[in-house]
């Protein structure tokens, strides 16, 4: 078995439940390589929701929380606030994050809390058998869009950017080296980072979106139909926009703001808690 992955995977849990050729395994390698390269293994915990991509961290021999559908970000924020000096890495999918989890994405981005999210987008609900997801392209025939989808798909990376995320990147599974580098940059970035990975689901998306169940074919298609964004370039139409879309170091991070406000509050005159009344031989409420 691969020497790097051997050190990180739970041997007893293998082989993974992913289909042959699934992009999730490629995301696993990139994430592990990033954690290993940064040397942060004991200080990192992973949180995931429900879906095929949420199984990615369950094979890691690390602290992992495999939570409920759409709520990974809520659990992750609680964990981060309890141990603000540690790292939290969230694995989620297009359905988990952009459908049921949309509200938590909104607020986590708005807070700009220091969490790194890897959004594995396979354009479908794979685990449950191939139903339409918010990222399914228009006219794709899925188990819940038998006449073809008539919804414009949500762009995960752009959505996160517009909601206030300060490090956003998009790559495909055909860009494994860049993906690893972006994950490292996202973890190092002090603020909310979201790395969207366009990933192949040969079993379901292969049928509904790409027209072929051959994983190599889909990966080749992803590579051919993507371009790497550089500021000021003439962007081609109808192609997948890859690259680092935003890297903003100016916006303040949630925990930083919270602690600054608390320190300000502690040194000023303390707030008297409303409605509380103490009597008899007691100390005064005011500190």
């Amino acid at each position: 078995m691969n020497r790097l992955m051997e050190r990180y995977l739970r041997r007893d849990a293998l082989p993974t439940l992913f289909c042959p050729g699934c992009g999730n395994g490629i995301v696993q390698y990139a994430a592990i390589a990033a954690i290993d390269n940064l040397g942060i293994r004991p200080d990192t915990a992973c949180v995931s929701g429900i879906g095929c991509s949420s199984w990615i961290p369950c094979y890691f021999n690390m602290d992992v929380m495999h939570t409920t559908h759409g709520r990974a970000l809520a659990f992750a924020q609680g964990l981060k606030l309890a141990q603000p000096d540690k790292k939290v890495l969230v694995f989620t999918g297009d359905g988990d994050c952009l459908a049921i989890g949309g509200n938590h994405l909104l607020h986590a981005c708005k807070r700009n809390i220091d969490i790194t999210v890897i959004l594995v987008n396979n354009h479908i609900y794979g685990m449950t058998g191939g139903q339409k997801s918010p990222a399914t392209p228009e006219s794709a025939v899925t188990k819940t869009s038998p006449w073809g989808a008539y919804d414009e798909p949500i762009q995960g990376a752009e959505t996160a950017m517009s909601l206030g995320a300060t490090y956003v990147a998009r790559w495909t599974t055909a860009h494994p080296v860049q993906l690893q580098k972006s994950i490292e940059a996202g973890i190092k970035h002090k603020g909310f980072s979201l790395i969207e990975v366009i990933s192949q689901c040969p079993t379901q998306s292969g049928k509904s979106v790409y027209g072929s169940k051959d994983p190599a074919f889909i990966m080749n298609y992803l590579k051919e139909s993507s371009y790497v964004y550089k500021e000021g370039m003439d962007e081609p139409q109808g192609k997948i926009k890859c690259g680092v879309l935003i890297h903003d170091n100016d916006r303040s991070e949630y925990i930083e703001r919270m602690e600054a406000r608390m320190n300000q509050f502690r040194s000023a005159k303390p707030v008297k808690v409303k409605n509380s009344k103490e009597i008899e031989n007691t100390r005064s409420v005011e500190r």
Partner: protein
Amino acid sequence: MKISIDNSFCKGCEICLAVCPKNVYGISKKRNSYGSAMPEAIMESECIACRLCERLCPDAAINVEEERK
């Protein structure tokens, strides 16, 4: 280079065959524990250790070791 593919993890997706820039891999007659045909490094000497196959194998079945001369 010494290339090993673990047959207990390989699922026979053949991504390694498609991505190798030096066409090192071919299909062998061996079967993995999934029951599908396993790839093997038929042109091992051509390997330049780019490690794309390691990164892109979804099951971490491939290990590329650089032999010191």
